[in-house]
């Protein structure tokens, strides 16, 4: 069946200035401008955001679920990267 909907775009919303852009969903549109306008109408009808990103879904590179274990394994045994790994004398109040 032919596709009459245009490509898929992913939508990211920034709630307030200074905050990260968060993925909120996706939509179909035929070009950038239409994608942005559709995103506004679909995802920010209640002031959910002050800024939007739209990006073609096909341009997203994602890690694969099968490789999850081995892919993230290097971070698994490095507890020394966390502040709680280190002892600080009780007498030192702020650090």
């Amino acid at each position, binding site marked *: 069946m032919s596709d009459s909907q*245009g490509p898929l775009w992913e939508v990211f919303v920034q709630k307030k200035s200074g905050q990260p852009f968060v993925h909120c969903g996706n939509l179909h549109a035929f070009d950038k401008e239409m994608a942005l306008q559709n995103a506004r109408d679909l995802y920010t009808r209640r002031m959910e955001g002050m800024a939007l990103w739209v990006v073609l879904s096909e341009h997203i590179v994602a890690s694969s679920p099968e490789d999850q274990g081995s892919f993230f394994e290097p971070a698994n045994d490095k507890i020394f990267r966390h502040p709680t790994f280190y002892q600080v004398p009780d007498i030192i109040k702020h650090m």
Partner: protein
Amino acid sequence: METINLENLFEAKLAKNEMIEPKDWMPENYRKHLIRQISQHAHSEIVGMLPEGNWITRAPSLRSKIVLLAKVQDEGGHGLYLYTAAESLGISRDQMLSDLHTGKAKYSSIFNYPTLTWADVAAIGWLVDGAAIMNQVMLQRSSYGPYSRAMVRICKEESFHQRQGYEAMTTMAFGSAEQKQMAQDALNRFWFPTLMMFGPPDSESPNSDNAVKWKIKRETNDELRQRFVNQTMPQIEYLGLVIPTDSNIVWNEQKQTYDFSEPNWVEFKQVISGNGPCNKERLKARNEAHKNGEWVREAATAYAKRQKETDLAA
């Protein structure tokens, strides 16, 4: 090399209440079940715009008109969230729309009933959206990630739908005797069709078993129906309305729950198989809207193609 049993991995994820995502392996029947359920849900949102859209030009005040416009626009948006959630399972939007337009796909039986008066529009917001929310709150914990996330957004947006419906109903129930009668008539018309929205009784529900096993649904049709009756009865009493169509409805002190009569399941089967009061009208309206949008889709496709060529040439 160790062979990983994908089905075991899938089951293990479900057992830990982890979400299944589009790229994860899933049993073919899980995928099929989701495509059917999510696309039906999407179609219900879109077809659900028709009985209410019918009243936008006839809303009794400017306030009620803007509220109704906002609600109908929300329903359109909900359809879009759900269509892309279904698309993530490998079915195209065009295929789903075609299934709707040919009558192959189903949508909620409730939208095959007419909205005869303004009180019916109020009753839809209050009862139909109320029942939908009850179902959708449960589906926020559905095991398929994109479906669950769409439900979270939808529930957030829909809480106003039910409240505005109840507010409109309150206005009528506490208005003139004639208005109160309209409110009562609307309740009479929509009570049983609303109870049907939760689907057939558990003993006869063909799709429920797997849906609960796979954590697509967390509660059964009968459980949700009972909760809806329990929640709605005090709201009916506040309005000073009654349910004359069910003489069995009564608070059961021992069970701490309402006893009530089942809707007419023969009628339900008739309506979902195409013989409700408005099935033909709804499908005709959808088909015409789609046909009337043909030139827009053609123009947009041609435009996108030309853009691509210009980009390549540059």
